[in-house]
């Protein structure tokens, strides 16, 4: 049999990781796809329909319209992060990460494969939550490309962050620490349910440090055409975070952190 070129090995290897990750998402759909849809539906019912009626318009839009992009983005963030952290930590815990480590695939392919797996889940759940949101709010599309770009970049950022979390995690508690104590507060304070213009000056300044605020607003800009942040800067930040986290994840694998003796 002729010797395969390294480029071909890498390409097929990358595809295989992505197919495997997709297979995992579909195999355990009850854990991967359904919970966010249920959560988003509850948010729409309680915050959107019940409380939202009393809130009145936000940034010139019906409150349900205003929160819909944020809720979609929240599910994208949670799922892209959760997919990679649980899949890669599970592979470490079950030792089947060794299947990849002994293979000829370079570490950047392994990181890219897992990250794309996270992006796929983030986008799949985001799509389903978008469909759910249509039952509660009419969603205009102001800039379609911005919607896609914000969704893809945000899911990439959090898929890579989830990968890094999984690399360091030594037990299930450490796997859940960041999502519970960092991600959730940042998301809730990331302008999902309110416009930062409502906040006092000091709180606004603090909010701008939160990257999720920029992501949610870039995404909302795609739907509603309005944003609390500078949209170009938001996309630049997302791009920068994607590249930086990808580099950090590859570096960690190259150093064998959490995976090699």
């Amino acid at each position, binding site marked *: *049999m002729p010797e*395969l070129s*390294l480029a*071909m*090995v*890498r*390409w*097929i*290897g990358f*595809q*295989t*990781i992505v*197919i*495997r990750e997709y*297979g995992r998402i579909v*195999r355990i759909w009850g854990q991967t796809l359904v919970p966010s849809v249920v959560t988003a539906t509850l948010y729409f019912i309680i915050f959107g329909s019940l409380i939202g009626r009393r809130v009145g318009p936000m940034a010139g839009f019906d409150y349900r319209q205003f929160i819909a992009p944020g809720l979609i983005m929240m599910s994208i963030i949670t799922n892209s992060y959760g997919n990679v952290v649980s899949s890669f930590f599970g*592979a470490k815990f*079950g*030792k*089947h990460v*060794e*299947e*990849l*480590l*002994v*293979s*000829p*695939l*370079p570490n950047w392919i392994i990181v890219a494969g897992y990250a794309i797996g996270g992006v796929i889940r983030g986008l799949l759940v985001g799509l389903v939550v978008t469909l759910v949101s249509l039952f509660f709010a009419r969603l205009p599309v102001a800039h379609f490309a911005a919607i896609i770009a914000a969704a893809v970049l945000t899911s990439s950022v959090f898929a890579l962050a989830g990968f890094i979390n999984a690399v360091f995690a030594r037990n299930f508690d450490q796997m859940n620490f960041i999502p519970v104590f960092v991600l959730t507060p940042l998301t809730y304070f990331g302008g999902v349910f309110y416009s930062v213009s409502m906040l006092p000056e000091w709180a606004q300044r603090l909010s701008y440090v939160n990257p999720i605020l920029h992501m949610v607003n870039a995404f909302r800009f795609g739907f509603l055409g309005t944003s609390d942040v500078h949209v170009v800067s938001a996309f630049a930040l997302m791009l920068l975070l994607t590249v930086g986290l990808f580099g950090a994840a590859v570096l960690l694998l190259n150093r*064998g952190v959490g995976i*090699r*003796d």
Partner: protein
Amino acid sequence: MLALSTRALTKTYKNGVHALRSVDLDVEQGDFFALLGPNGAGKTTLIGIVTSLVTKSGGSASVFGFDIDRQLERAKSCIGVVPQELNFNQFETPMTIVVNQAGFYGIARAEARVRAERYLRQLQLWDKRNSAARGLSGGMKRRLMIARALMHEPRLLILDEPTAGVDIEIRRTMWEFLRDINARGTTIILTTHYLEEAESLCRNIAIIDHGGIIERDRMSSLLRRLNTQSFVLNTRSPVAEAPALADFTLRLVDEHTLEVDIAKDQNLNELFERLSRTGIEVVSMRNKVNRLEEIFMRLVENRTPDA
């Protein structure tokens, strides 16, 4: 051509344990090679370094001429590894596991499915191809790891205690399979605690202890070094006491069993003749201890660990 070559390979773990101390080891292409040693001797660390699961502290290693520092991807493409511990996703099916593994080595899915059928059939796992791997028996799980390691048709197959906990019937089936793979050109490095297995399968051997190679020889040459062998003789009629024969020391184990030590310059014909003259008829005999086991114990026990 050397399938594996290591020079001054060293590993010191963070806890200060010197797992490997300057190991030089060559394994020829096509060999069926035994790497033996007691628990904690450094076998798995050596395999871990070659397969990049363990980071070496010093020295070099190459696989079919590909240096693991400079051409790691090429080196790893040549290796198939069957680890000591189960390391596949227990929730996946054997078919998924082997097809994905082929993909990690650049084998397209259509070709991977053809190979999967071949190896899963050969290792008697085809009927279980769509069952969750966690439901397989211990022997099946071991065979699944062999099938997985063969999917990219490696030039060097490394088996780290592949038959641990497997019943004798399956073990012998696996031996035949491995002999066949080796006969078709795959170099095999085997670590095992079943020394009978190593003696039966391997042509060359290295014994590692306390992180260093303490013996490296052809299996046949090593076995010839035994000066004395102990045999167990089963007699047809009961024997009251061990007969006193000049040049032979016999011991009575029970009324139907004798033990005798035979030196290199003695022969069994003479022993049987003399026993026959005393009216003792031997109906069967066996080595008291596996020959390799005897040499192995002597080599390992005679060595005191370095500080």
